[in-house]
């Protein structure tokens, strides 16, 4: 089996047997892979503390394209993002992002997606505290877009009609904004003008605080995004980290 070296992000890590760990890796060149790190749960393991969730670095893998489980020979840590652990909002958002990569990314390698996730983890670790909530929303919407499920906001998603100014319907199942006529016909979430502009701003990738933004707005936007992901990407699998981030159970304010 050839030993390959690739930039990688640890998306998930858990104990397997008394002595080993299994890591789920986003790799730059080989897509998302599972790998066993033999002996990683031993006290004096050569892996040391390198196998931390959300760490970025270089994975050395004994790689077989057809294998379900690869063998991790070593992981050189470049960045462990300790700042993510000092704020549950940052940590929850980073976990939700990792979960999307783990559950929803295509099996074939996707360089842009890999680089995007790495950049988002850096950003979530360093963004000023007051912007964590908007950075998380913008980052997760960008991830949805990168996975090919961008919501349609330029015209009515059902019939392509032009949209009025101001309040607009947003249909999760249809995947975007609705014109006035479709809004009347469908049961749908109505976004008032400021919420619509906030969503457009988030979809444009900005984590600037929209005008009049409060924790209540943040909660409503988290709910909308979570429903959208569940409907279009989750394929019926529960997304636990997404649910954790959505409910913001750690404080209810951010």
């Amino acid at each position, binding site marked *: 089996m050839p030993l390959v070296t690739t930039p990688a992000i640890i*998306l*998930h890590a*858990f104990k397997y*047997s*008394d*002595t080993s760990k299994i890591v789920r890796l986003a790799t730059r060149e080989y897509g998302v892979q599972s790998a066993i790190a033999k002996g990683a749960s031993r*006290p004096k*393991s050569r*892996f*040391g*503390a390198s196998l*931390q*969730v*959300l*760490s970025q670095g270089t994975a050395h893998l004994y790689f077989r394209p057809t294998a379900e489980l690869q063998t991790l020979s070593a992981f050189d840590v470049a960045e*462990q*993002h*300790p700042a*993510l*652990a*000092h*704020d*549950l909002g940052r*940590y*929850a958002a980073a*976990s*939700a992002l*990792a*979960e999307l990569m*783990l559950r929803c990314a295509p099996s074939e390698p996707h360089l842009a997606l890999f680089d995007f996730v790495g950049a988002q983890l850096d950003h979530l670790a360093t963004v000023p505290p007051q912007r964590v909530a908007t950075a998380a929303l913008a980052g997760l919407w960008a991830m949805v877009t990168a996975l090919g499920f961008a919501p349609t906001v330029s015209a009515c998603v059902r019939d392509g009609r032009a949209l009025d100014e101001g309040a607009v319907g947003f249909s999760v199942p249809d995947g975007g904004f609705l014109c006035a006529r479709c809004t009347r016909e469908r049961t749908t979430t109505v976004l008032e003008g400021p919420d619509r502009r906030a969503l457009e701003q988030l979809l444009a990738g900005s984590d600037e605080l929209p005008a009049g933004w409060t924790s209540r707005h943040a909660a409503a936007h988290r709910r909308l995004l979570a429903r959208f992901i569940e409907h279009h990407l989750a394929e019926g699998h*529960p997304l*636990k*980290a997404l*649910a*954790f*981030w959505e409910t913001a*159970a*750690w*404080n209810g304010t951010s």
Partner: protein
Amino acid sequence: MSAIDDVAAELARLPGIGKKTATRLTYFLLKQPRSALERLAEAITALGTRVAACSVCGNWSDADPCGICADARRDAGLVCVVEEASDIAAIERSGEYRGVYHVLGGHVSPLDGIGPEDLRIDPLRARVANGGAVREVILATNASLEGEVTATYVRGVLEPHGVKVSRIALGLPVGGDLEYADGLTIARALAARREMGS
């Protein structure tokens, strides 16, 4: 299935025991006198019937409260918070700690669906809020990202109660898991604990 297969299958479910070892252990047991087998069976049964989590700290014990909580010579004003009951044994090995404990039962892990509400954080808050007997809470969760984020959360919960909250100075070199650290490392980490800022 035969009795031999039954025992081997049960043993093989234990951590670190493969099929081969399980079979070897089963044949070893077969050669033991019947009284030894009965003692083993009774000891294992007692784990299920006599041992329960201490209602104060969450440690596994035959008695409630556990021996540590009931020990009047220990300092009940100093509470060391750990992820698992097995971490208590690691800290006791250091021989340096004279306070009491609080077992959370794990760490925050969004990907596994484990949030703060799944941990024994409310009982900790109640202990601290109850009459102000607790002077200091030492957070000795693992030095992993999950252990850190759990410590961050617990500190936030305890902050309104005005208790001193410190973090054990356990470096990542040991692998982050408390249970793997030797007694000297833990003694040093406890001595070098730092008060957690907001």
